[in-house]
Each structure stands twice: as structure tokens, then as C-alpha cells.
């Protein structure tokens, strides 16, 4: 990660707080995505299937939030923002293609794990590129209010599709009812628009 500015920090920890700083929040999600890949790789059978559903939810929500909230802001506010964002969108498009192919596949299929590795590489490289070329620029703008507002919107999206639903809080049936990637993304988009006061 690079950057020269010192962001506003949480008084308790001295760290940029994920509640107040969209960059800290998205970086936390990048770490969580990597952890979820580990979970899928290290599990078998039904557990792998569940872990993969968790990963799909996280990726769908995360990418939707970036597309709806962070990329438009970067495009408007950062010098050269349009090009930076176009490059990120191209990376996202490639990752989404891979995700869509995986989503229609049984995790027990022998093609599943090699394709998952391709997805992991694409997602990891995309995440680092965002951190280095887009997020670093966002912090240089020094608009703490904007970072906080965006954090709220991303959190609203995150709440629509928990990656690890608590047993009892959300039944298995409701879990399945979260549905395909497009439906998860739609729900996340609705939540963001509600949080930012923009209608559909």
C-alpha cells in the first residue's frame, strides 16, 4: 500500500476505522476474501460447497459496492480517475466471468479447483491494484466526510448478504434463498441506494 497522507484516525485505536473510512473497510474485505479462498481450498464436500457460497456472496457484495460507491467517486474526484477506474473495471470483468463459470459448477467437479485458482489470482491481483492505484489516491484527497459516507453505504450492502450466516438467525432455506450472484448484487445495490438516498 502506498500513500503520503495521514488519514483521520479512530480515537480509541489510532487506526483508520472501517466504520469511518471506506478504504479501511474495503481493505478489511480484501483480507476477508483471501480468508474465504483459504476456507474453500481447505474444506471438502458439503463444507466446501458452503464455503464457496460464502465466497460468492462476499465477492458479489464487495464488487457491487465498489462499482456503485467507490469507483464513481474516484472517477469524479481523482486526477486521471477515469483511466484508473476503467482499468479496475476491466480486471473486475475478467474475475466476474471466472466467477460465473465457477458458480454453475459442482465443487466436486475436477475442473473446479483449477478454475478457483484462476479466480483467486485474478481477484488478488485486482485487489492489490485497487489498493495501490485507486485507494491510495482516495486518501490523498483528504475528504474524511466522503470516506465516512461511502463506508456507511458499503456497510449497508455488506449487511444484505452475510458470508457466515449465524445458525438460527438465518435458516438454511433462507440461506439458499439468497439466490444467484445477480440477485445478491441487486439486493446490495438496493441497500446502497437506500443508504445514499438515491432511488432506483
Amino acid at each position, binding site marked *: 500500500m502506498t500513500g503520503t497522507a495521514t488519514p483521520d484516525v479512530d480515537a480509541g485505536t489510532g487506526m483508520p476505522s472501517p466504520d469511518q473510512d471506506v478504504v479501511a473497510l474495503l481493505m478489511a474485505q480484501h483480507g476477508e476474501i483471501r*480468508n474465504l479462498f483459504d476456507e474453500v481450498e481447505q474444506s471438502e464436500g458439503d463444507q466446501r460447497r458452503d464455503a464457496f457460497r460464502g465466497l460468492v456472496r462476499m465477492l458479489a457484495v464487495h464488487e457491487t459496492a465498489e462499482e456503485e460507491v467507490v469507483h464513481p467517486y474516484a472517477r469524479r474526484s481523482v486526477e486521471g480517475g477515469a483511466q484508473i477506474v476503467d482499468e479496475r473495471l476491466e480486471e473486475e470483468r475478467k474475475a466476474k466471468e471466472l466467477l460465473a463459470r465457477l458458480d454453475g459448477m459442482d465443487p466436486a467437479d475436477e475442473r473446479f479447483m483449477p478454475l478457483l485458482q484462476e479466480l483467486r489470482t485474478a481477484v488478488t491481483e485486482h485487489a*492489490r491494484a485497487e489498493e495501490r492505484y485507486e485507494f491510495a489516491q482516495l*486518501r490523498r484527497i483528504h475528504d474524511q466526510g466522503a470516506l465516512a459516507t461511502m463506508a456507511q453505504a458499503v456497510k449497508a450492502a455488506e449487511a444484505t448478504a452475510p458470508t457466515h450466516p449465524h445458525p438460527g438467525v438465518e435458516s438454511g432455506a433462507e440461506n439458499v434463498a439468497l439466490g444467484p450472484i445477480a440477485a445478491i448484487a441487486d439486493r446490495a445495490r438496493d441497500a446502497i441506494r437506500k443508504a445514499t438516498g438515491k432511488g432506483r
Partner: protein
Amino acid sequence: MGFNPLEHGGIPLERQIRSWRELNVAPIDADHCDPYTRCRIITMNGIEVEAILFNHHLARHCSDLDLKRQLAQVRYTEAQQQKAVNWLLPGVSSVLETTIAYEQVAVDLTAWVARMEPDPYLAQAYRFGVLEDFDHLYRYANLFEMIEHRKAESIVDGLTEVMPGRPTTRHHRHPVDNVRESYDRRAANPLSKLHALTIMAAEQQTMNFYMNTGPTYVEPIARQLYQEIGLIEEEHVTHYESLVDPGESWWEMLVNHEYNECYLYHSFMEQESDPKVKAIWELHLNMELEHLRLACDLLRAKDGREPQEILAPELPNVLTFEPNKTYLRDLIADELDLTTLGTGYVREAHERFQQMQEAFLGGESAPSDQVIDMHRDMLGREYRMETEGPHPVAAMRER
């Protein structure tokens, strides 16, 4: 019979230059590599950086143009070796991730050297230092989880435990007390010379890495922690470089450097699990054999000495990356409360130590302690990975 580098021919120097295409190595996989492959890469990068810097210093003391040209030629290939080695690290890794790997190197490399070192005074120096690197690993691991929300076990993979060692705040000693006595070049076991060079080079690279990458962080606690630990790396370089006999001639030092490179490439070639990386260790060994031959010729021409007078008859037992968990736990139980006084070690905090503590810490909580407090505030616990049971010192168990 072991491997004697003096009896093997290498690749002729004029055939050692590689094109940019050949140097464009495929990096290792950050998420699935053998952690000790990454440790070997980081170690050899440190060794090659030292080779380059040492050769530059030597060249600055040479007035003979032909000799300077020969040194430049060897040095250029060392620079290519450094590129090929360090570019094995993947671009997707963050600085902090690589930092944790650097500390894993410092822990398991220094622990192995401490276990194998024949000289008791030198062994003590490694035992003393390794407990500090061990603590740095724990501090950075807590920072890593706070910033990247990943656990350090995803990097060190259960091979190295993560828990407190000698507390980092107590590493801030008066610079005077970091200078050790050197081995005697005429009496020292040849293995001792290799150990000292290896650990000195590894710590020097760590110092350089932290001093340059620390300010790329935005988070204030990260910037502060790199500064604090970066200064301790300065202490460590002082500590280890003073173990080397300053009475060695430039040519003797050059021979020792080249011989050590042969030793390490040979060691790592023997144990490497990644075939692509192993091929690089093998190629570089064959280059180093030629560098060694040239250095030996210089020793004969300039000092009128035979390399056999200063080198072992064959390479020592291969230097190995392996877990040192039990060894480290015993050390923590026995030697945690040591500090240095003059060139020796004491258990009680003396006046000069206290003065330095006051000057640097000023009675405040240092970044290395703050990082643990912040982690606890943020996640309700510390990050530790104690695979072999509770911490050996009861007072240092997690509260």
C-alpha cells in the same frame, strides 16, 4: 565425502551474463508456496545485496584499473543474481506480508545457526539476537491482522510459532553495548566465519528493507512500528558485524564472501521443494564457483596465501530451514531477561541501559506495545499462534 567448492569448475565469467528475458523469472505463489522457499529467497537476496555492496566498497579501495574492471564484471553478475532471486517474490504480496516472512527468516535462520555454531561466545550472540527477532514477528503479526485482516499463520504456516519473545521495548540498548568482540581469523572454525557473514547479511537486508518501506504506510501505528523495529535492526547489524575479525585482508574477506555464497546456494539446492526455484539455486551455485575461483586467485596474487589456509576442506553440513520450536521455547525460558553490557551479557538492567531506555521511550508506551493494545481493543484478543502449548513464561501468557 562432502562438496568442496575449490575442486569444482563453474561457468566462465564471460558466459554468465543473462538477457532481460532470462531474468524475467516467474514469481512464487503467495498463497500456496512452501514458506521455507520464500525464506530461502529472502535469505539469498540478503546475501547477494551484501555481495554487491561489499564488492563496491572493495572497488573503491582499488587503484588498479584492470582489477577494478574484473570486480565490475563479477559485481554485475552478482547484481543479476540479486534480480533473479528477489524477483521470485510475488507482486501481490503487501510490504507487511513480506515483512512477516523476513521475520520468519530471522527466527529460523538465526536459531539454526545458534544451534550449529561451535564457538560458545558466537553462539551466545545468535541466541541473544534470535529472541528479539522472535518478538518482532509477534508485533508485526498483530499489525498485519489489524490492517489486512489476515492471520500471520497464512504466511508462516505453523512452522514458526508467533508469541512474545524478549519485549521489543527492551531491545533499545545504548549503541556502545551493541559492539561485540570478534572471532580470531587464525583460530576460528571456518563454519563460524560463514555463520557470521550469513546472519550479518540477512540482518543488513532487513534493516534496509524496513528503512525504505516503512514510510509507504498510511496508518500511523504502522509507520511508527517500522521506525522502532528499524532502529533495532541497526543494533542487530552492529551486533553481528562486530563478530567478524576486522584483521581479515580485503582478499580474505572476498574469498569468505564467495565461499559462503557457494555454501548457501549448495545448501538450498539440496533442500529446495520448488523445482523452478531449485534450478536457480543450481545455476547460481555454478556461477559462484567461478567467482570463488577468481577470488582465490586474487588471494594468491595479493596476499601470497593459499585459500586452503583459510577455508574448510569441504562444505559444512547444509544450512537448513526447519522448525525450531522446542529450541526457541527453551531459550525463552532461560535467556529472555538478558541484556548486553560492554561486549558481554548481564541479567540486570544497568545504568547505561536505563539511560537509553529513558532517552528513547521517555516513560511512554512504545509503538511495539501500542500495537498489541490496539489489536486487543479492535478484536478483543491478541494475535498469537502457540502450537506447542501455553507460553513458556507464565507471566507472558495472554491475559
